[in-house]
C-alpha cells in the first residue's frame, strides 16, 4: 500500500511538471496545428538556464521567469524560420532543436550535466517553508500543484483575451486573421513563443525539483507532449465545460501513469522509448476511432 501511494505521488509530480510542457504543446499543436519539434531543445534550455542562474545565486522564482523568457526567445526563432524564411514547420523545429543542443552545452559551461545540490529552489526556500509541519513531506507535490494551477489558470485567461481569441482563430482560419488586419504569421510567432516558453518553464521546474540539469533531458519531449495532448483530448473531448488545458494536464498524468505502471510490471528501462512510441500510436489511433464514431453518429443524427 505504501509503495502504491509513493508511486501515485511520483506519477502526480511528474504529470504536473511535464503537464506545463503539455499545455505548451497544446498551443502549438492543437491551437495552431503546428508540429513543433523545437520543444525537444527548449525543455533542457529551461533546465540549463535555471542551473546556471541558481548556481550564480539568482532567486529561484526569478529563474523560472527567465527560463520562460528564454524559451519564448527560442520559439520566436522557430517562428522566424518558418514565417519569414518560409522553411517548413517540421524543419524549422528540427533546426532550432539541433542548434539548442550547443546553446544548452554552452549555458552549462561545456558540461552535459550540472547538479546544484544545497542551493535554494522553489521547493526548499521562500514561501513553502511556511507550510505547516504536517504537510512538509508532501511539499513538492503541493508546490507543483500550485505552480501548474497558476500556469493553467493564466493560460485559460489568455485564451479569452483579444490576443488569445485571435491565436485560436489563426489555427482555425488564417484568412479570418488577415481579414481583421493582422498577419497570421505574427500570431504564429506569438503562439510558438508562448508554447516554447511554457516548455522551458516546465524544464526549469524539473531542474529545481531534481536539483540538477542535463542537456539530454529533452529527448522524447515532443512525443510526450503530443501524446499527452492527444490522450487528453481524445478521452475528454465529449465532455463540455472541460477546458483544453485540463485535458492536456489529465493526458500528461495518464501518460506518466502508463509508463510507471509498465515499469512496475517489470519492463526493462531499455524498452521505455519503445513504450512511449507505442503509447503515442495507441493514443492517435484511439483518437481517430473515437472521431470516426462521433462523425458517424453525427451523420445519423442529421439524416
Amino acid at each position: 500500500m505504501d509503495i502504491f501511494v509513493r508511486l501515485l505521488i511520483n506519477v502526480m509530480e511528474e504529470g504536473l511538471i511535464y503537464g506545463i510542457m503539455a499545455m505548451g504543446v497544446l498551443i502549438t499543436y492543437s491551437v495552431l496545428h503546428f508540429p513543433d519539434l523545437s520543444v525537444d531543445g527548449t525543455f533542457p534550455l529551461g533546465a540549463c538556464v535555471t542551473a546556471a542562474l541558481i548556481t550564480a545565486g539568482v532567486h529561484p522564482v526569478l529563474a523560472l521567469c527567465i527560463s520562460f523568457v528564454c524559451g519564448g526567445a527560442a520559439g520566436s526563432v522557430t517562428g522566424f524560420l518558418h514565417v519569414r524564411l518560409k522553411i517548413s514547420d517540421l524543419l524549422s523545429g528540427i533546426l532550432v532543436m539541433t542548434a539548442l543542443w550547443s546553446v544548452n552545452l554552452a549555458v552549462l559551461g561545456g558540461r552535459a550535466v550540472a547538479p546544484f545540490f544545497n542551493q535554494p529552489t522553489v521547493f526548499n526556500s521562500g514561501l513553502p517553508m511556511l507550510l505547516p509541519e504536517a504537510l512538509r513531506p508532501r511539499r513538492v507535490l503541493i508546490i507543483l500543484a500550485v505552480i501548474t494551477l497558476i500556469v493553467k489558470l493564466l493560460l485559460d485567461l489568455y485564451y479569452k483575451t483579444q490576443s488569445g481569441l485571435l491565436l485560436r482563430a489563426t489555427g482555425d482560419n488564417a484568412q479570418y486573421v488577415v481579414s481583421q488586419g493582422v498577419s497570421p504569421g505574427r500570431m504564429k510567432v506569438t503562439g510558438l513563443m508562448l508554447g516554447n516558453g511554457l516548455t522551458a518553464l516546465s524544464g526549469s521546474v524539473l531542474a529545481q525539483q531534481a536539483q540538477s540539469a542535463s542537456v539530454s533531458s529533452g529527448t522524447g519531449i515532443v512525443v510526450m507532449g503530443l501524446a499527452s495532448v492527444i490522450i487528453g483530448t481524445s478521452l475528454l473531448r465529449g465532455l463540455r465545460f472541460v477546458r483544453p488545458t485540463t485535458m492536456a494536464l489529465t493526458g500528461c498524468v495518464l501518460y506518466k501513469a502508463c509508463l510507471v505502471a509498465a515499469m512496475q510490471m517489470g519492463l526493462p528501462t531499455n524498452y521505455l522509448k519503445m513504450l512511449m512510441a507505442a503509447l503515442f500510436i495507441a493514443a492517435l489511433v484511439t483518437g481517430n476511432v473515437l472521431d470516426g464514431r462521433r462523425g458517424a453518429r453525427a451523420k445519423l443524427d442529421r439524416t
Partner: protein
Amino acid sequence: MQSLIVPNPVGGEMMVRIEHIHKTFNPGSVNERPVFADFGLTICKGEFVSVIGSNGSGKTTLLNLLCGTVPQDAGTVEVAGRNVDRQRDHQRAAFIGRVFQDPAKGTCANLTILENMALADNKGRAYGLRPGVNGRRMNAYRAALEPLGLGLENQLHLTVGSLSGGQRQALALLLCTMTPIDLLILDEHTAALDPRSSETVMELTDRVVREKKLTTLMVTHNLRYAMSYGDRLVMMHQGRAVLDVTGSGRDAYAVEDLVRMFGEISIEMGN
C-alpha cells in the same frame, strides 16, 4: 463580337483606381497564362459594381489584385486616394472588406458567434491582453444580428461551425462591415449556397450596401443578380471589360441579351 463600353459618367470622387495593370501567371514556363495587359478600372465612391465574365476572364485575379493576395507585374492600384501597391493583404484588410465564396473563410468555426463579432469589432486596433469580449457591446451585437432575421441574436454563444452555410455567409457579411470600410468585395459570395439562402444573402447584401452607402465590387455567376442588383454592370472577357454600362445604359439590356453575349464569349473560348 462588338464590344460596348459606355464611358463611366463622372460622378463624385473616385474610390478605386486601377491603372495599366499587367499580370501574367507562371511567366516563362509552359503554363504561362497572361491575364491582364494594360487593364484599367475606376469605381466611384458609393458605386455598386457587378462583374460577370467567363472562366479565366480575370474576375478573380482582379479581386486578388485589389486585396493584395496576388501582386501585379506592373501598374498601380489606388483605394480611397492611397496607393496600396506596397501594402500586404492584411494591411489592406483594414479598409477593404471581403466576403468569400466559401462560407467557411469569412468566419471562424471554433469560436462562438459572440467571439467572432468581438474580433471583427476590434479590427484596426491592437489585439492585446484585454478581455476578448466586451460585455458592454453585447446589446450592440444583438441589435446588429437581429435584422438578419435568422434568430442568431439569441444564440450568441453557439460556435459558428454549427451554423448553416447561409447563416455563416450572412454573418460573414455582417462581420466585414462592422467597422467602417472603403470598399466591400463580394467574391461570388452566393455561389456555394442553396437557392433560397442565396436569395436571402443577396437581399441582405443589397440592404447593407444601401444602408452603409458602401462602395462595392461584386463578382457573380448569376446574371440575374448582376442585372437586378448594383448600379453598374461590367462584363469581362480575356482580361478586358467588354461591357461596362451604368444606370439607364444597363436597362437597355435584358438577361437574355447577357446570356447571348455570354454565349458568344464562350464560343470564342472554344467551349
